[in-house]
């Protein structure tokens, strides 16, 4: 990553969204930008048009019990410019009960399953997703197991099946 990585993307976003409330931070030369949920599509579109052509990962973090956290959920976009090798982390924060965020599928098609997995595990709804449903867990599953207030052993989902006895099988 070049030294000017942050300033490059800072300029891009300042030019595209002069009024957006962006917060920049850095850890070991990895650059992050915190974006309000309302501006996420504009930010991601501007970054994609400026050369961030790959969405490496889209995931979420539950910040319940996290020291110093003020928001409940954090949706994380890990972006890569495959030409220059520059990377950027875009983060946005969500709170209950408004766990809705616009889908990134129109920007990067690869966000399809990633968003469905985030919904599956955290219950964050991606609006505008073309095929929005659970990815890994059964359709009838009602909880979101990666939330920190969900017990590791579950709420009895693993027991909710009919019992077949030998006489009736």
């Amino acid at each position, binding site marked *: 990553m070049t030294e000017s990585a942050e300033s490059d993307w800072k300029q891009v976003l300042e030019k595209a969204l002069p009024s957006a409330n962006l917060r920049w931070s850095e850890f070991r030369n990895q650059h992050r930008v915190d974006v309000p949920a309302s501006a996420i599509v504009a930010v991601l579109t501007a970054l994609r048009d400026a050369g961030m052509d790959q969405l490496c990962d889209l995931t979420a973090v539950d910040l319940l019990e996290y020291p110093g956290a003020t928001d409940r959920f954090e949706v994380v976009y890990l972006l890569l410019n495959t030409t220059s090798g520059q990377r950027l982390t875009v983060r946005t924060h969500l709170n209950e009960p408004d766990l809705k965020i616009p889908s990134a599928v129109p920007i990067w098609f690869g966000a399809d399953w990633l968003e469905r997995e985030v919904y599956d595990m955290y219950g964050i709804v991606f609006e505008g997703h073309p095929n929005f449903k659970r990815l890994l867990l059964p359709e009838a599953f009602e909880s979101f197991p990666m939330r920190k207030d969900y*017990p*590791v*052993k*579950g709420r009895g*989902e693993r027991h909710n*099946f*009919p019992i*077949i*006895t*030998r006489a009736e099988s």
Partner: protein
Amino acid sequence: MATQINKQLGDNIFLTTLDAAASWARANSLWPMPFATACCGIELMSTAASRHDLSRFGSEVMRFTPRQCDLMIVAGRVVMKMIPVLQRIWMQMPEPKWCISMGACACSGGVFDTYAVVQGIDRFIPVDVYVPGCPPRPEQLIRAIMDLQDKIKKTGTYNAREFQLRILPDGPKRFDEDELMRIRERNGLKLDDHKYDPIH
């Protein structure tokens, strides 16, 4: 009359019951259905391979359709999404049929005490022989098959009527006390507190 026949025929004729004859035949030609989902499946393959040679016990004909099998070997952990599949495969097997639960995960969930992994397949389907181990050695599976052969020979009937007696679930109770205790410890609740129902 019997002695007369014995004299004439000698050792050329054996007298037995129909149940014993049918069970003897069945016990020595088990057709396993490998339901292998994890590392136990590798040991299951090893058991069937040349070194351990399961065919010595007449049960080497692994078929991948349940309709041709009479022994289901569940080898590996079973997650909750798999249970309807497992039950469907079990129901598709023709009578008489038996089930071996191979390995710690299939028997009890093993180390995977999570929301997604079933804590023992015997909670949802009947199991005849349990094999402990993580994963069990092929010798242990051979031992389990020999035990099952023993069971078939001793309790089997030609029309499989012994299964009609097993009308209760084979596994632990839906709500075993250990689990209640763990929930109680975790939440600081009393056993008779119905506000927290972990099943529903």
